[in-house]
């Protein structure tokens, strides 16, 4: 049963996953190559900047993969009014669990691409002796972040249903306004505090605001 659900989700997402794999594999190499061509590789701060750019890219990729994998199955089922899943001889909760776990398993594909891509990218990079490459650490952070974001997007989609996009946009607008207000006006509201709770440990998005350095001390 699970294998078949996994297979259907794989077929729906394979083009998207292919792009993530390409991105996960090639982009670190490009960032490291291009980055090192612009900086003095002896300078630790320059090398750290390159590592940080790569890290930010991986954070973005994790979020993109999470949202894509979480929303696609629901959107396909919703377009058919969920008649198929509801007429199957399994409880709805079990079907949703199968979908959820299948997406989490598929998330391993871009993670492995990020891991191999990072190893390949940093293997030949001229990194100063006091700095180190962290491809495995980054891949673990990538997976955990993507997994939590995936779970949050999945929850939003399966609870808000058709309104998920609207709710997500509303949340993002509020967050963007608060961040802008906070940055420009020095405004510290309880809502900004709440957002900080979400993005600092043990909040669900704390891995995103953690250290995303491909190259670090």
């Amino acid at each position: 049963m699970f294998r078949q659900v996994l297979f259907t989700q794989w077929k729906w997402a394979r083009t998207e996953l292919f792009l993530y794999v390409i991105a996960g594999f090639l982009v670190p190499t490009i960032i490291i190559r291009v980055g090192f061509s612009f900086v003095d590789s002896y300078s630790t701060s320059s090398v750290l900047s390159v590592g940080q750019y790569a890290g930010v890219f991986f954070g973005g990729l994790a979020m993109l993969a999470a949202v894509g994998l979480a929303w696609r199955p629901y959107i396909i089922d919703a377009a058919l009014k969920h008649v198929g899943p509801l007429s199957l001889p399994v409880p709805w909760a079990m079907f949703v669990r199968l979908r959820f776990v299948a997406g989490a398993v598929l998330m391993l594909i871009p993670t492995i691409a990020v891991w191999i891509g990072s190893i390949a990218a940093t293997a030949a990079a001229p990194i100063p002796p006091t700095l180190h490459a962290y491809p495995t650490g980054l891949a673990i952070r990538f997976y955990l972040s993507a997994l939590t974001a995936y779970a949050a997007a999945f929850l939003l989609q399966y609870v808000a249903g058709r309104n998920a996009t609207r709710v997500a946009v509303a949340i993002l607008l509020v967050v963007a306004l608060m961040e802008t207000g906070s940055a420009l006006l020095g405004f510290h509201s309880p809502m900004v505090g709440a957002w900080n709770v979400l993005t600092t440990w043990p909040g669900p998005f704390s891995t995103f605001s953690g250290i995303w350095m491909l190259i670090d001390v």
Partner: protein
Amino acid sequence: MSDAIIVRNLAYRAGREFAIRDLAMTVPSGSVYGFLGPNGSGKTTTLRLLLGMLPIGDGSINLLGHDVPSGVHKALAKIGYVPERLHLYPTLTVEETMRYYASFYPDWDDDRAETLRRQFALRAEQSVDLLSKGESGKLMMLLALAHNPELLVLDEPTDGLDPVVRRDVLAALLEYVSSRGATVLISSHLVHEQERICDHVGVMDGGRLIAEMPMTTFRGGIKRLRVAKPPIDNSTTPFTLLSRGVTAGREEEWVVRGWQPAMREYFSAGESELREVIDLDLEESFVELLRSARQPAGIGAEEN
């Protein structure tokens, strides 16, 4: 004979406009039950309530001996369902779709599925999003039949199909029913099609089941009578007068339900004269039944 579906006092409300009210319905085991009704009468909603897809407002449903919703998943393992809007995942092939459904049904029969696929001339490697409407309908029928269901719930299964495909689908259905003795609940507004295959019929209108009876009763019980010099008072008729209307001179046409030949005496006892008793086909009977359900007898006659 036990009953495959027993519905009592079912109520459900969808928005402000539409509601299923006091629905009571019994589908005998082994019967082919035609579920008739105009568009928007509540047929699909009722079927989805039966299968536990919608929450029941009030009342009870028993499906193959299991209460809905508590035991619906056990019942669904023994039910083949063809929804009104076909639910097929676009990127899968025919074979992958069969494998997907097979994984959920413990009684899935691979040989039977393969036989049906060949019978319906479906190519295993054909992508579902490239199937024609007829092929999609056939695939859904295949999926509904391949796990040897005790009950088939078909919601407008032949709607939009060309006559050749429709014949294939119905032939497969009838072959399955005759070989397995399965129960079929088939919803359709194609009345003449139901006439050929159903042995029981239920008619929905405005969220209510306005009639439920064996097909023979339904077909033989509704007649059109040509009556000369009809009586003004029709309150004492031995049959149910569904409608009456003036045709020419002092002649009227009456549509009646529960007609028996012995009832001719009703007219000969008075000044009236029964000129002709005309058999109605199922579609005409269905239309007259709906008309009578929507308007009390006599009003139609006055308007005519």
